[in-house]
């Protein structure tokens, strides 16, 4: 047997770490009796419908926006990108709640503007909300892949007479298929494990049954149902793994300059997304803030959120790198990479409880910031792995080999060739983990040090108590802080672009 690739050992450690909570779930779960009752099938159908529709919706919105933000030079480019990615910073249950409150009979839109609107409810309402808050997954992963594509192929196709639209469809997008699939996978997994939105929208899904059991002190059955949900997650992971990637030669990305009338038209076209996903919920928050007033908020909550999420983002990309590299190195590496995705499909409260059991194995760590960060990393590692992997897969492996031939050691190749070329994926991955950790709630409630209040926990507390106005302050701050985080990270991405092609770009 050949020697193991260097990335396998650290990847194996990470994979074992990631699978631990699932092992705990097996320990907690009771023996299965009635796997396939008629009502379970109905729940399963609802769950699959919501997940499938959301993934399609996320692609339908995310891919065009990725093309737009990657290639087209719009005025205030970066602002639009930050705004379009910002729905990631909004907990989807808040979006669901505000959209539900805004639309329909007696909704805030009718109260304030006198507009008659249909209500957002049921399967379609849930799909709309989940799509609006998960399409940025597709946007970010696809955009990172698009920016890594060498524009010379498009130039060649255009020279041969292919129109631009056909070029995008037949030359550009097929090469970004892995990234699109990775993003759609993340949005599907997020939807599978989300509870708040289906509950508010009145859709009976798998997660709802898990919550009913959990709250009825049936931890064993909730764990069993979570494992069944994991089977669906496994299926989604398998489907996604069938999508093959194309290796990419590094080069300059395509740049399109819109004509004078095209820029406003394009901005007008993206405005409904920003209006629905961001402006409307924020407006509802402001309305409640004005109506109910604020109070009791401490800036320390924002710092706590940023600290824990920042550490988690850092740790997640460090751990995700070997996994992403291993996925490229061979079949076993691919398996290890798939394994790290499992945790993302477990509903937060069940995962939180599994991590309590895990954390209690290390009592000095229990209820410390370190364990909370570890929990975030285990839960959101797939975000970093997925985004780094799609940039790794587009790497031309010949570059690394060339460096080796020229006398660089494996370590030097990693730090001087591989790492710089995957920087864009690393940054996107860190951004995703940061944003997800900012809005995570159930594991934070269970695992944070006692009295460690974050924006999300404070928001939840105010919402529970019915102080919607006070929920507005942390809600707005959560979006603002995540927006800043996004801006900083996307700024870093730009430096990475210069670093890659600095010689011909000044």
């Amino acid at each position: 047997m050949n020697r193991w690739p260097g990335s396998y050992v650290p990847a194996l450690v990470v994979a074992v770490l990631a699978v631990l909570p699932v092992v705990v779930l097996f320990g907690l779960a009771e023996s299965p009796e009635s796997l396939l009752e008629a009502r379970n099938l109905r729940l399963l159908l609802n769950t699959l419908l919501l997940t499938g529709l959301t993934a399609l919706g996320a692609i339908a919105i995310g891919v065009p926006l990725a093309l737009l933000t990657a290639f087209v030079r719009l005025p205030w480019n970066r602002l639009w990108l930050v705004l379009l990615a910002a729905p990631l910073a909004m907990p989807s249950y808040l979006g669901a709640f505000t959209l539900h409150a805004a639309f329909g009979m007696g909704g805030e839109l009718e109260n304030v503007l006198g507009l008659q609107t249909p209500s957002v409810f049921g399967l379609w309402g849930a799909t709309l909300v989940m799509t609006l808050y998960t399409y940025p997954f597709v946007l970010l992963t696809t955009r990172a892949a698009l920016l890594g594509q060498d524009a010379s192929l498009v130039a060649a196709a255009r020279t041969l007479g292919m129109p631009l639209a056909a070029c995008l469809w037949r030359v550009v997008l097929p090469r970004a298929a892995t990234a699109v699939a990775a993003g759609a996978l993340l949005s599907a997994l997020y939807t599978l494990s989300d509870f708040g939105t289906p509950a508010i929208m009145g859709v009976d899904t798998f997660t709802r049954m898990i919550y009913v059991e959990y709250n009825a002190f049936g931890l064993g059955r909730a764990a069993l149902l979570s494992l069944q949900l994991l089977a669906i997650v496994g299926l989604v992971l398998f489907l996604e793994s069938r999508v093959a990637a194309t290796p990419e030669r590094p080069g300059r990305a395509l740049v399109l300059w819109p004509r004078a009338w095209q820029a406003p038209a394009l901005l007008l076209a993206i405005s409904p997304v920003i209006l629905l996903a961001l402006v409307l919920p924020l407006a509802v928050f402001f309305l409640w803030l004005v109506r109910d007033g604020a109070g009791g908020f401490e800036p320390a909550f924002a710092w706590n959120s940023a600290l824990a999420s920042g550490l988690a983002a850092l740790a997640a990309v460090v751990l995700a790198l070997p996994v992403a590299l291993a996925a490229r190195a061979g079949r076993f590496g691919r398996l290890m990479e798939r394994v790290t995705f499992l945790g993302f499909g477990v509903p937060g409260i069940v995962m939180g409880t599994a991590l309590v059991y895990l954390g209690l194995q290390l009592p000095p760590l229990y209820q410390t910031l370190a364990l909370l960060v570890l929990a975030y990393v285990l839960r959101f590692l797939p975000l970093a792995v997925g985004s780094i992997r799609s940039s790794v897969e587009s790497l031309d492996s010949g570059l690394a080999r060339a460096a080796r031939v020229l006398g660089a050691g494996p370590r030097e190749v990693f730090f001087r060739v591989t790492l710089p070329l995957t920087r864009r994926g690393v940054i996107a991955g860190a951004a995703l983990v940061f944003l997800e950790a900012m809005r995570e709630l159930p594991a934070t409630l269970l695992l944070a040090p006692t009295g460690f209040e974050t924006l999300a926990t404070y928001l939840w507390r105010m919402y529970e108590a019915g102080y919607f106005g006070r929920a507005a302050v942390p809600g707005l701050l959560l979006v603002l802080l995540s927006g800043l985080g996004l801006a900083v990270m996307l700024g870093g991405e730009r430096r990475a672009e210069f670093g890659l092609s600095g010689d011909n770009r000044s």
Partner: protein
Amino acid sequence: MRRRHFIGALATAGAAGALGGIPGWPVHASETGGAAKATLADAPSVESLPSLEGKLTLYLGTGEGGLYENVLKAIEKRNPGLELGIRRGPTAALANAIVAEGQAGVRRADVFWAVDSGAIGLVNEAGLAQPLPGDLTGLLDPVFRYERWAPITGRVRSVPFHTGRFSAKDVPTDIMALPESGLRLGWAPAYAAFQSFVTAMRLLEGEERTAAWLQAMARNARGYAGELGVVMGVERGEVDAGLANHYYTLRLKAGKPDAAVDMAFTRGDAGCLVNASGVLAVNEGELAVNFIRYLLTREVQSYLAREAAEIPLVHGVAPPDGLPPLSSLSPPELDLTRLADLRPTLDLMRDAGVL
């Protein structure tokens, strides 16, 4: 505004002297201290309690979040030497965490305050609750005395009905007869309090009769997400009557005094079960017990009665306005901790197609 009064009042109770002279303080606090229950001592005032010193970790299972927070703030303000760490979370999640900590031999919680006696039962069953001294549990009405936990406030199951078309005598006094009463009914099967009620019915009437009752109800009942929704549905006339905890009707009427809804109570069955929020000490020691004493003072009890319309369970504090005195109700006799056994209840409800 009243909330702020409460905090100020509890914090300065010692300095202000006589209780009646404190602004915003309920003057009816001892009205019900009648001769009938003279054997019970009146609930103490916070003034008579030792001050709390040291570190205490409270696991607060939320639900009525905001109101309990005000009580805690007031206790902290009154006891500057108390270092109170609060871990908040969904009640079931915290109960599971305490059990996991117990299994691992790690004790982080000193006190667990839960909105739901089922969560208390779960921790109790795991053998993690400490016995409480007799002089503390002795403050409670005899039916609410438990060795290892203390109910804090009560809530009674009720049948809210539309007052425009019906009166209390149109509602059967037997919960088992409700489905055949001809009334259009509203209920919230996914709601925790409703599930506790079905558990009580299962324990009192047996599985077979409960299953039949659920099926009969399912044929003509309209489902709501929560029990406030049920009461609002009754008030709007969407249904004639419903099943809900008493405080939803009282809270609705507090905001809308002419609301067309009132409550009827069944007699001697699960339909008028009195359930409770409760507290238990996970760690031994004076501090945890003394902290619990604060929750059973007349100040805290009358605050929760007034602001949350919950039923005070200590002697000498008036029940919320609009609720008949507990002595006129005939709740079934049932150990509340048995309500933690929700599993068979959920199976019944699922088989009947209501969940």
